């Protein structure tokens, strides 16, 4: 016994920031951003909090699945850009929903949504839960250096959620960690200890673009090939690949190296930018609400990010 996805939801702040808007903040252009990253516009918070984004996505997923907050047995959430270090995002979503179940967060950066699913699968396997809410919510606009044109044009804000129920839709998964902070790093607030002799680091997203690109493409290709092989599947049998929306160029090159058509990959980075742990559930909600999947279709979710952590899973809709 594991789970099936009963419903999905997403929420992004109203404030839309175009590439032309970005070119007024840093030295960049619409053409450069489209060509290098594939983003056309992104949603950036003004007064919304990370909790609010996650709560709104959760409400929509609950409604889409016909689930009441009191029916939830577990809430798992992920963020690298929470409002508070503590209480966790999941605890605050529990409170706002009026749910009473256990709630905790998992940190696996951009791959985190898959780690939420894997953790939830363990609860279902032990028969401990009937309904689980999983949420990825990010306010990355507070973690980017708005003077660094290499990163501030990529990252954005948003949230995605799914409600899981008992079923047999979670078919297989693969998880990899290659610990290190040289490729992608977000330093924490340094504090004000009078005893600290550590050099404070600026608490912004730092990313080695080329190494990240190489790692991401290799992660997508090896994880997808692994899942196909382990399950005796051909690419034709997969309806959609839903990749973490980090950079369109990563997805394009993965397609070429996998010898799969780009139409197989669901891409929405042009609308939302890179929303880290929220990107896959946002894509999933769009796919769901557009009616692109029918019961029984196979999809692969694939993610990669800081840690370094990458993961993929095979799901029957």
């Amino acid at each position, binding site marked *: 016994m594991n789970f099936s996805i009963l419903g999905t939801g997403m929420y992004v702040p109203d404030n839309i920031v175009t590439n032309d808007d970005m070119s007024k903040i840093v030295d960049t252009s619409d053409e450069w951003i489209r060509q*290098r990253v594939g983003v056309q516009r992104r949603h950036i918070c003004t007064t919304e909090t990370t909790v609010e984004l996650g709560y709104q996505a959760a409400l929509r997923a609950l409604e889409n699945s016909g689930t009441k907050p009191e029916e939830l047995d577990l809430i798992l959430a992920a963020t690298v850009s929470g409002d508070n270090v503590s209480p966790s995002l999941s605890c605050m979503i529990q409170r706002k929903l009026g749910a009473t179940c256990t709630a905790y967060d998992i940190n696996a950066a951009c791959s985190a949504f898959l780690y939420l699913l894997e953790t939830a699968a363990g609860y279902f396997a032990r028969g401990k839960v009937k309904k689980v809410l999983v949420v990825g919510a990010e306010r990355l606009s507070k973690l980017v250096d708005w003077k660094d044109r290499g990163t501030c044009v990529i990252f954005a804000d948003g949230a995605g959620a799914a409600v899981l129920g008992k079923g047999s839709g979670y078919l297989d998964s693969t998880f990899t960690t290659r610990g290190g902070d040289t490729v992608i790093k977000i330093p924490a607030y340094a504090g004000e200890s009078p005893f600290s002799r550590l050099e404070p680091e600026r608490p912004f997203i730092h990313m*080695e*673009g*080329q*190494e990240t*690109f*190489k790692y991401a*493409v*290799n992660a997508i290709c090896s994880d997808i090939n692994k899942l196909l092989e382990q399950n005796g599947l051909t690419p034709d049998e997969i309806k959609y690949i839903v990749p973490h929306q980090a950079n369109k*160029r990563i997805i394009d*090159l993965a397609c070429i*190296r996998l010898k799969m058509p780009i139409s197989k990959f669901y891409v929405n980075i042009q609308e939302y930018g890179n929303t880290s742990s929220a990107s896959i559930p946002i894509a999933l909600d769009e796919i769901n609400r557009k009616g692109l999947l029918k019961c029984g279709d196979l999809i692969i979710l694939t993610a990669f990010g800081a840690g370094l952590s990458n993961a993929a899973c095979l799901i029957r809709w």
Partner: protein
Amino acid sequence: MVFEKICGIIAEKINCDASTLSEDTKFADLGIDSLDVTELVMNIEDEFGIELEVDSSLQSVGDLVKLVESKLD
């Protein structure tokens, strides 16, 4: 040998005549950006069966040749 193979990989990627490339050829002059360079590095890794580090110091065909030769020594 390394130079010829690398030129072949670059020519295939950007659809040009490999004989027009020299060690001094700058990627910027070929319209190759840093992510394209990364793709070239990945293709070279596959071709030579080696693992390479990629960073912004790779600016020319000669830089790539030197990097690969240092790994093959």
